[in-house]
């Protein structure tokens, strides 16, 4: 029971991560691929925050009378990662819009057909 409760977070994070990975490699629609990439990304955030969590710890805002806090360093890392993640998402979506203009479609199969690259 301890093993399950202690590792449940990690296992669910891996399941979510694999769901995102599957979306990226199996779906041909470019917007859906980017959604999959974002799911993958959020699962990594969840993993980091899970590692930083301390049982019965408080949110790391210093206050009198509280002496057990969660680890603030993963929070700092992930705060940066979320913002950078949105920047990359915006860039990816801009590329999707550009591809739509050039090819008239955002389905990977149709793009390969037009390029005769497969």
């Amino acid at each position: 029971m301890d093993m399950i409760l202690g590792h449940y977070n990690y296992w669910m994070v891996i399941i979510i991560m694999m769901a995102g990975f599957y979306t990226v490699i199996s779906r041909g629609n470019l917007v859906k691929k980017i959604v999959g990439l974002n799911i993958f990304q959020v699962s990594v955030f969840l993993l980091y925050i899970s590692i930083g969590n301390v049982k019965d710890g408080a949110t790391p805002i210093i206050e009198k009378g509280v002496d057990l806090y969660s680890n603030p360093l993963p929070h700092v890392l992930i705060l940066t990662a979320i913002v950078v993640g949105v920047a990359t998402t915006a860039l990816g979506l801009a590329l999707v819009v550009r591809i739509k203009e050039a090819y008239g479609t955002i389905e990977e199969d149709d793009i390969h057909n037009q390029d005769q690259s497969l």
Partner: protein
Amino acid sequence: MIDNIVDITLLSLIAIHAVAIIRMRSLFAVVMLFSGFSFLSAGLFVVMDAADVAFTEAAVGAGISTVLMLATLALTYTPAEADKEEKAPTHKPWLPLSVVFITGALLIYGTYNLPGFGDPNAPSQLHVAPYYLEKSMPETGVPNVVTAVLASYRGFDTLGEVTVIFTAGIAVLLIIGGRRRVKSKIEKNGGDREA
């Protein structure tokens, strides 16, 4: 105990959202489900004591990402095909499924040596984290340790982050900013929106 129950419930809901996103065909529904997915993960961050991360995820992950994706849908599909669905996959799913299962099994095998969730004696809790928890208040005067590290101890890293966002913004403008010369059927103003 109550923490554990909320944690398990939210994580399961997030996983259900992720699976639903795989199965959904309608792109609009996919984007909306992704927004819900982000909000649920923001809730989970609150349960796991990461208030700052939760704020950012709710505002940036669930808000701005969704708006950007909806804008992309608006720019790539004409109003007539607004409830456009993605094409059914032409390949059999066995190759990606097996890749995903093998990777997932290896990762789960790897978690067996990780310290348990919430273990106060895990190595990550004993390294430099106590230093910041003890010293950040007297050294910077900011009660929120995350803000103190982000803006004071690691201020230059945050400056670098701003540079990354600036670069991405410029790149977005370069990619779709000068596209008015391209003939188009619908009125498009994506360049302004991305900026």
